[in-house]
């Protein structure tokens, strides 16, 4: 071990995440993992770690940690101000913390989730092969709390040449493919799905993002027997208001899936905040 980060404030919600535990759906366990996979991978690359190393998924900032040794960290995802002992710097760049230094991830101006990676990786016991917290199944490390000590491992790779990356531009258009039950909906439903500026409701979590707009109408009104779900599935429950499933989606669901986000769009959807406006493009 080459040091640790001590949690002085966890913010509204900070979770340990990696690339999840795929392959266990037959046990009723979803893949879970970082909600914004691209941001998680980028954070690890900036500190020279493998893409599957654990990061901290910081929802709406507020995280304060103290280093017990000299550590390299990087924060990606929602663009935010990162302070070291009060001195501001940007996200999306590698930051050196001296022993005793305090790192503060501020509330982002836009976007929802930032990812903090550390050179050497966080040493956290895996559950079913993953260090991810699945909030729906209650699996994996508990949300961070004041006083938690996150041990940091020894680096195994050299630092990369690049120490900064561009912050993502705001995404207001999400690409979709037709879903398996598109034919359960009227033709109008598909054009309405793509032709509407949807409002993100207050119900935003790792399970799903709910959208508000015109009701999407069904052509087939039968009950749908439960069938498998994926991250990015656009499901339309009885209300006609679509929801976008996130990393901690249930293994199966009982409402028809009209469309499916591309993997990049599913990452972007993980940054949607209540009140954001978003369009879907097919």
């Amino acid at each position: 071990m080459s040091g640790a980060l001590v949690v002085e404030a966890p913010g509204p919600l900070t979770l340990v995440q990696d690339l999840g535990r795929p392959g266990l759906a037959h046990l009723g366990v979803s893949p879970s993992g970082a909600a914004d996979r691209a941001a998680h991978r980028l954070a690890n690359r900036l500190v020279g770690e493998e893409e599957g190393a654990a990061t901290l998924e910081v929802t709406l900032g507020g995280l304060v940690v103290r280093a017990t040794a000299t550590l390299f960290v990087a924060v990606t995802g929602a663009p935010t101000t990162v302070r070291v002992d009060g001195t501001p710097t940007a996200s999306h760049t590698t930051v050196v913390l001296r022993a005793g230094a305090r790192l503060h991830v501020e509330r982002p101006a836009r976007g929802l989730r930032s990812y903090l990676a550390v050179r050497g990786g966080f040493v956290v016991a895996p559950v079913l092969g993953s260090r991810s917290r699945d909030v729906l199944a209650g699996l994996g490390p508990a949300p961070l709390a004041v006083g938690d000590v996150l041990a940091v491992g020894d680096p195994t790779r050299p630092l990369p040449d690049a120490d900064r990356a561009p912050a993502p531009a705001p995404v207001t258009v999400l690409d979709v493919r037709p879903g398996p039950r598109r034919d359960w909906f009227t033709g109008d439903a598909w054009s309405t799905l793509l032709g509407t500026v949807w409002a993100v409701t207050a119900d935003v979590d790792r399970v799903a993002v709910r959208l508000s707009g015109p009701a999407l109408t069904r052509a087939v009104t039968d009950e749908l027997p439960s069938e498998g779900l994926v991250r990015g599935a656009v499901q339309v429950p009885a209300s006609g208001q679509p929801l976008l499933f996130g990393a901690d989606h249930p293994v199966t669901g009982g409402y028809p899936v009209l469309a499916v986000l591309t993997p990049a769009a599913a990452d972007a959807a993980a940054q949607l905040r209540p009140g954001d406006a978003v369009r879907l493009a097919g």
Partner: protein
Amino acid sequence: MARRLLGYGDDAVLLECADLADAVGLAPRVRAAVPAVVEVVPGARTLLLRLAAPLTADARELLLTLPAAPTGTASGPLVTLPVVYDGEDLDEVGALTGLGADGVVAAHTGQTWTVGFCGFAPGFGYLVGPDERLRVPRRPTPRTRVPAGAVGLAGPFSGVYPRPGPGGWQLLGRTATTLWDLEAHPPALLQPGTRVRFEVA
């Protein structure tokens, strides 16, 4: 009804099966038959197939024609679950089915169930059995809290809640057997293909 392959985004397809028995019987055969399939998520009459590569025309043909294992031939391990039949909905299920409470218990314990698929929560298995007399609808309003170990019925399925949570199934009783244990390998006692006998505790 014939099988159909339905698009499910960039990394998956949904295989709509002829019926529940077709889906349950096909699930264990798909991964071995089609290498591009990396995960199979069974549903009530579908298999969601996560893919490492797009399906070839031959693979699509195979998925549409591969014979399912016949029902009743599941060869998974046999698990016996002792149940105290004192569930809040036992009398209601007795009335709905016309079997009476004692008849429901006799039908529930008198057949071998098979885990068709898992979902809803870690370790929750959807159990199917040959005796169709126990088909009942879900409760009109779900309970906000169902205790761990509760044994229920809904539609063509029976199931046991692995941990406390909300639920809309008709409750017949409770078992003390642990269905989900992170210290066990695998942690889920019930997996697709596992056979289950209920007995009066």
